[in-house]
């Protein structure tokens, strides 16, 4: 079976500055993978390369066995949704309109969304429990609500895979959990998910595969339980990290924290 995403000895640099080199990664259909690493290690760059917005100088990236660079913008948008970290909303569109924008890869250049498109957008919002936001101005929403609206928009694209860039940054504790649960529900539906995160604990919460990035590329990769060791975490972040395990009834909770 061809992999959903296949990265073969990819290297990227901005001018003379090497961001990472020789990255190899294989993501299967339906898998959730979390990219962890310190600031500036190139997580977002890698995400943008997978999305096809940036081109690695060496190696290649394939989506469903096809070179992502050879896919058209529309093909990519039908295949992948992308929830960005940096995001500005200039106009006070209704939230429903923002979600409806997800239909654009399915519409011709001169087309406007049909009633079916609007219905689909509304259905998706209901399904996600944000139907009450439909008529609210997007610019007036809280950070957590916005993030949910943006996730609804990517679902409106009907993609097979969603890329998340720091989906929980700027969110409070409750909203972080809400977003992570939403992502995990999407994963349960068979969507392939690739996300970057500043918080190592998120990888455990999503029980995902982890790719840990250091200064030059991926230093460890595999299931969270196996990869998220004190040694690996300490090496990635350049800081002594301790991993704890707590048993709460039937569930085992893992978490890490800097050594005191």
């Amino acid at each position: 079976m061809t992999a959903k995403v296949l990265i073969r000895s990819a290297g990227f640099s901005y001018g003379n500055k090497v961001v990472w080199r020789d990255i190899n990664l294989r993501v299967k259909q339906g898998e959730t993978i979390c990219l962890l690493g310190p600031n500036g290690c190139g997580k977002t760059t890698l995400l943008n390369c997978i999305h096809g917005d940036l081109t690695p100088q060496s190696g290649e990236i394939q989506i469903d066995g096809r070179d992502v660079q050879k896919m058209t913008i529309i093909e990519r948008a039908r295949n992948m949704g992308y929830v960005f970290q940096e995001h500005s909303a200039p106009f006070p569109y209704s939230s429903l309109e923002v979600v409806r924008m997800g239909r654009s890869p399915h519409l011709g250049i001169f087309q406007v969304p049909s009633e079916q498109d609007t219905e689909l957008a509304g259905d998706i919002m209901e399904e996600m429990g944000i139907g009450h936001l439909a008529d609210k101005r997007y610019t007036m929403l809280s950070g957590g609500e916005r993030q949910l609206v943006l996730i609804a928009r990517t679902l409106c694209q009907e993609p097979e895979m969603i890329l998340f860039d720091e989906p929980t940054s700027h969110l409070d504790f409750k909203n972080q959990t809400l977003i992570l649960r939403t992502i995990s529900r999407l994963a349960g539906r068979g969507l392939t998910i690739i996300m970057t995160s500043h918080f190592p604990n998120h990888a455990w919460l999503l029980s995902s595969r982890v790719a840990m990035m250091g200064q030059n590329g991926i230093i460890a990769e595999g299931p969270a339980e196996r990869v998220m060791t004190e040694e690996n975490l300490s090496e990635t972040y350049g800081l002594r990290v301790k991993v704890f395990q707590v048993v709460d009834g039937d569930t085992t909770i893992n978490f890490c924290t800097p050594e005191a």
Partner: protein
Amino acid sequence: MRTTANRLQTTLPNKQKSLDIQTETERLSWRKVALLAGLPLLFLFISLFLGRLFIDPLTVLKILAHKLLFIPIDKTWTDTMETVVMRVRLPRAIMAGAAGAGLSISGAAFQGMFHNPLVSPFILGVSAGAGFGAALAIVMDGSMFMIQVLAFVFGIVAVAITYFTSRIYKTTPILMLVLAGIVVSALFQSLLSLLKYTADTEDKLPAIVFWLMGSMGGVRPEDLPFALVLITVGVIGLLLVRWRFNVLSMGDQEARSLGINTELLKGMVIVCTTIISSVVVAFCGIIGWVGLVIPHLCRMLVGPDHRVLMPTTLCVGAAYLIFIDNIARIISPAEVPLGILTALVGAPFFMYLLRKTKGGWG
């Protein structure tokens, strides 16, 4: 992926409610557009009987019916009246309406594309280029035709320079476009200053200065077909992609992730707006503030959704410029240049808008 959609179809109770609210808002907006569409026609008609020579509305109607619909009516009016209505006021009002509509929709398009409230259709240098072209023609003793041609051509040349300067790695980032536009504008403005400095102060310099201030006074009936066809082409182009402005306004990278070929779309928008504004500038001179203020006003009326906003700017912009042009020719025997009035009215109004929306988007 079908399965996602299918699973999402199994949905829950109060979905209908939120959707109904939305469609209701949209329906209301469209009703407003329908109402606003009557406005330019009303103003157009009013401008036919107002003026130094007052012609009563009934006579105007008779003249129109006689000349445009070829209805045989007893001629109760003088030849002068007929000439004033058919050869002076009508073409002039039509041109003012077309210019107002064109500049306003171009402004709305650029504000959406640049996601910036301070953007006007002239941001890429079209007015500076056209101003230089017109001045060049005037200095060279060119005819009216020559002035129009050079203004049109240099307007397009200026935008082309801006566009190709800002192109890096096969993309045209918004910031690069704005900066290149400022540089190109400055370049053509200094060339224009050079022309003014060297121009004969008896007749050439005043001609340049008056041309730059904008006027509908020079519009002849023969100019209309060419101007109207080009403006209509540009306007239709912008209307066709009106929904895409919503997506484009979220930023280039995001729009691309939603399947929009941003370079193609931006290129097309720039071509359409440049055709419109260089035609307008070539025939009417530089009329500022319309393309900046009207989109804001329309956003207050019908909201930010470009599907509704773009047609609205056409109606309001046309009505506004016909109205201002009427003032320009009525308040004093020596006509007041249009650019002065649009700025005099536009600037305070923009101030009011800024205060009211607190720098937001209405």
